[in-house]
């Protein structure tokens, strides 16, 4: 049941329209700036936590702070600073126990995917964590499931080709999600290449 409010409404003069829209916009801007500030700390902390959780998941036990010793490298031919590969050395005491590489692939179905690939000191994969992906729910998103990821554990390029079986590799792709599977392999491949670029902090 609508009430009759037409006669009380502010007339649509030019001045009224400009003033009302300006005031509404100003108040909205204030509310947004306030919310942005209030949520800033949890949002940044959330991102940092995500990185730490991923590091713990993909590396053998360590007791240093890999994110404080991180090294940034760029893939060959990559000019975009948004696509930095980050290498995290993990140590137990003074010994290097492994290295995690934050790698990406632009060949995904949706937006570029980001993986955290953990290597032990023999350059074998310990585990992989999916940091960011925007693949099709129920299909490409399965790349984050153990069922797909676990086949990469303990593997190295000499004995295990990081390409899907369709491309003459050894990787079992996700059914109906070949593109996502290929992108995953691409990111792992890129992580391997980055290992060789890490000066000193890399695995020798």
């Amino acid at each position: 049941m609508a009430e009759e409010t037409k006669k009380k409404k502010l007339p649509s003069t030019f001045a009224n329209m400009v003033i009302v829209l300006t005031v509404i916009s100003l108040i909205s801007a204030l509310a947004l700036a306030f919310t942005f500030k209030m949520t800033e700390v949890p949002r940044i902390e959330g991102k940092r936590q995500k990185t730490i959780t991923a590091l713990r998941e993909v590396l053998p036990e360590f007791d240093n702070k890999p994110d404080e010793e991180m090294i940034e490298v760029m893939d060959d031919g990559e000019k975009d600073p948004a696509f930095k590969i980050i290498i995290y050395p993990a140590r137990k005491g003074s010994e290097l126990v492994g290295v995690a590489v934050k790698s990406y692939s632009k060949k995904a179905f949706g937006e570029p995917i980001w993986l955290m690939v953990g290597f032990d000191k023999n350059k074998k994969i310990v585990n992989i964590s999916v940091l960011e992906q925007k693949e099709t729910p129920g299909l490409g998103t399965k790349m984050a499931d153990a069922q797909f990821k676990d086949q990469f554990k303990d593997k190295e390029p000499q004995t295990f080709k990081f390409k899907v079986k369709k491309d003459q590799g050894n990787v079992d792709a996700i059914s109906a999600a070949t593109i996502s599977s290929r992108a995953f392999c691409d990111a792992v491949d890129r992580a391997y290449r980055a290992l060789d670029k890490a000066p000193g902090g890399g695995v020798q």
Partner: protein
Amino acid sequence: MSFRKELFRGLIKENPTLVLLLGMCPTLAVSSSAINGVGMGLAATVVLMGSNVVIALLKDIIPDKVRIPAFIVVIACFVTIIDLSMEAFTPELHAALGIFIPLIVVNCIILGRAEAYASKNSVGKSFIDGLVMGLGFTMALVLFGSIREFLGNGSVFGSKFVAEDASTILLFILPPGAFITLGFLIAVVNRLQKKKG
């Protein structure tokens, strides 16, 4: 106006998704799992209630000719607040819903209720309308999402009912399956309505 009657209106009689046919885009896109449906529905409900209240409060000072831009600014403001809050406090859900949170701004339900109800009714009534319409949307999404998740993934809210490698009807998690499910649901609702009256 009893709350029970309003609830019935929002959930069934004038369900925004299945009867008024509003908000089709996010319904089809985000409903591939039950939990995504809940998340999206609740986020949209909060926005709907907030924007309905603000617009009802301002209805006498917004000149008629600029009401649409004014509504959009208010709605966009609320959605951005929700987006930032979700990123800060519910990061997994935020990542799962992704781009569809900002798309709540153009969810026809929000603008539709602003224009059809909040701009013409009291704050109290508009608040209730926002709540029941939002719940109706959420219910439709959860129903939708559960069907699609069950047929397409063999699970509901993540709990699997079939073996790990059982073959499921993948079509239902993809866009064509969304359209098919929606078509069937609307047909069922239409049939039920015909019977009643």
